[in-house]
């Protein structure tokens, strides 16, 4: 069995719901890309965790379970979409067949002299039908099909994960430097993360840059689950109908204890 090594970093963050200071373990792995890359190989993921302070086994296991949960969530989302799209694709095929038949039959049975305006009207509606109902579902079919096959392969071949303490001294120093920087600064939450991201960029700590970028994007978003998935606007309906549902790829994070200097 192949062992895939992945890194996790314990980075400073602020609490979300009712406040508080805690650190967050961030596993530097993108689930969709991982599945596409290693889905076909029987493998196990070994997470090397770099933290400013030593972690107990309970805390390490929390990271492992966060990994499992994020994968499970992604698998569930893909499976749900597969069930929905089965019929959505059928709709596309039926529409495609009708459109093709109409396109051909119009020319077959067209009496002479035919009305050019009627043809224009037909072409206009075919355009909507063919592009909206056919090409887009066809594209989604191919794309989602490959994702679903990848996920199915990965479910069978991914044999869980184990978390160990990282031993690379350079990476350990990086998380320590992030902690030191965090203990020196204060300000608005987004501002704090922005400053930490810039600091990480200067250090060449790309995983932390990705993590803070994602956090800032999450916080800036003026959207909720309800407004995303329960919208009333026609535009949103049309967009979702033609572009399909996008499966959100979860990030793997787990809350850790407060490790601030002097805490």
């Amino acid at each position: 069995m192949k062992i895939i090594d992945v890194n996790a970093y314990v980075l400073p963050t602020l609490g979300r719901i009712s406040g508080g200071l805690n650190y967050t373990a961030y596993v530097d792995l993108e689930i969709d890309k991982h599945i596409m890359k290693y889905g076909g190989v029987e493998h196990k993921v070994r997470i090397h965790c770099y933290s400013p302070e030593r972690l107990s086994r309970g805390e390490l296991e929390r990271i492992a379970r966060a990994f499992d949960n994020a994968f499970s969530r992604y698998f569930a989302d893909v499976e749900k979409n597969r069930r929905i799209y089965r019929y959505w694709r059928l709709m596309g095929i039926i529409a495609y067949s009708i459109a093709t038949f109409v396109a051909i039959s119009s020319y077959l049975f067209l009496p002479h002299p035919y009305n050019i305006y009627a043809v224009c009207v037909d072409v206009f509606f075919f355009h909507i039908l063919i592009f909206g109902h056919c090409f887009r579902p066809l594209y989604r079919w191919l794309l989602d099909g490959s994702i679903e096959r990848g996920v199915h392969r990965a479910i069978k071949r991914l044999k869980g994960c184990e978390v160990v303490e990282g031993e690379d001294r350079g990476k350990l120093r990086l998380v320590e430097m992030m902690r030191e920087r965090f203990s020196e600064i204060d300000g608005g939450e987004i501002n704090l993360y922005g400053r930490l991201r810039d600091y990480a960029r200067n250090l060449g700590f790309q995983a932390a840059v990705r993590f803070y970028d994602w956090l800032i994007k999450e916080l800036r978003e003026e959207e909720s689950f309800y407004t995303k998935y329960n919208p009333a606007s026609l535009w949103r309906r049309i967009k979702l109908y033609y572009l399909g549902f996008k499966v959100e790829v979860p990030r793997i994070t787990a809350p850790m204890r407060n490790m601030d200097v002097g805490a």
Partner: protein
Amino acid sequence: MKWLVYRVPRKDEPDLFYIDLHPFWFLEAEGMYTELEERKERLTIQLLTADGKAENIEKQVKEGLLDTFYRDKKLISEVLKRLLSYYLSLLDPLWLRLFLGPTFLASGLIRGYLSGGAADFLIGLYLLMGNNLLVKRIVKEIRDYYEEVESGIEKALKGLERVECIEHPGLRKLKEIMERAKDKTEAYIEALHTCDKVGLPELKEFYCYSAPITEWRYREPHLGFPLYDEGRSIESFKRRRRAATKPSRMRDEEMELFDFNIGAKYLYRLSTYRELHRELELAAERIGAEKITVYETERGYEINAYEIGDGDEARILIKAGCHGREPAGPLAILQMMRSLEREGRYTDEVLSRSRIAFMPVDDPEGYSMRAWMGVDMAGREEHWPPQGGPYSLQGEAELLALRLLNRGSLHPAQLLEYAVRFRDPNVVWGDNVKSPRIAALQEYLEEFRPTFAVDLHETIGKMADLIYKGAGILSIENFYIPPEIRDRLENMMKRPENRLARYLSKRRILRRLLGLEYVRTLMAEIPEFEIGEAMMRHVAEKGFKVYRGEYQKLLDKPSPDWPPQLISIDVGRTIDGPLLFKLDIRVCPAWLHHRFGTLSYTTETFQNPIDERVGEDLAFVEGGILKILGIKDGD
């Protein structure tokens, strides 16, 4: 495949087996079940404990898991299914059916068979009927899928392989707190605020539930009420005053009135009332505010007002902390008071022309517990956990029972009010007040007689975050609405009985017209509406979010059967809606407007970083003060 659960220490009671059921746990469990099926594995439970010792726990864990699953599965799967059916309703291409379908059908009929009309007819027929059948099929498919998953999870839990006990230092620390503390409530409050620090934020909710001082009685229905031997008397509490000192302020030209450099880390450290109170006292001393102790709670916490300023042009009241679980308001007041330590461009003018009263926390215990206080008709108080109040889904069964008894003559919101004996302390203001705490606050306000008041609130929590996460500040202009306008509004917002009328009433443009007409009538009577506009403009100028876009649409139509609780009149601005009239709810600012003609506003902030929530409140209040004093018109 493994699943993580917790063994949570409690005070003077056996430890509790706790599963973190966040809103999406079902999705994760569903994926987990798929994996178990595919890999032909069995489930292992990892139990995080304080000491890592396992003693014959397997059977208990298995039974506990199944119990929890059976108890919650209906609720959770119903919520998920409801969300999913909305999500799936997106697939219904209504515009295709209603526009293209008839067009093609008509075209087919007019053009006839020979000119290609048959094909048009076919397309029209498909668009009208066929697509819809497939959409219905999809909805059925997804419902079946969830039922399959439910039974799968049940199977997985029954076929549990083993239970692994693992030590977690955070749980050890929580256990130490439980052993060390003498008082149960204090122990749970300390544990609640330690959860974040030890990296177990998901346990906060559990300690919130456990912290309340008394046993909750809010679920008792209104079929009579207990007679207490000694009811709490409403003797007026003797207010204490501490004289102000003369402050010395440093000039800060960059600041207008309040300081918007807010430290999120600093605010997060003030999670209990004691910590907040210490900072408030320090700030009050530095700015030379007069301290008035309005009331003292049973546990010895002071409810204070801090008055500052020598002018009589305006009497300004800034109030917060009515609901303990909403921390941004009290923190915003602290930030306002700290801002007055320095002299901004308008500080001197504002303080020389007005008198400002800051009332940071109405419910100190609730602030520490992150709980919601309820008051019953005898004036007794109780604290409820954040998710367990009368407005949560837990009361659904009772509500259903009442609805059956009621046979539909009462509004569901009215039923909810009848189902609970304890009411929100924000809705019991007026002449018939029974709670000594509210009576004391009322007495103080009668003496202060504000001309401008803002009450700072929040809407946060797990379920609220699913709906409102990322929304900006919302202002509710609590002006007293005369009965004749109320009646008119109620008629306008009533659900039409005729099907066609109901369909037309859903159209946005008609609703907007109705709303505008109403607002025009109202504005003719209350010209001060422009102050609200200036305040919202000030919030936007300061770079904070305002309640708008998709969120604003939620207000117009909260639920298919219910009239709106609030009616939007502008971006981020609302007035009380017919739902509140029906319930005869009079919140504190509405009472102030009715009693003294005070220009009263309630603000709601939503799930955003704490510094942004505080900043939104600050900007709103600053805009209001500058506008009413005519210092800055906001134009």
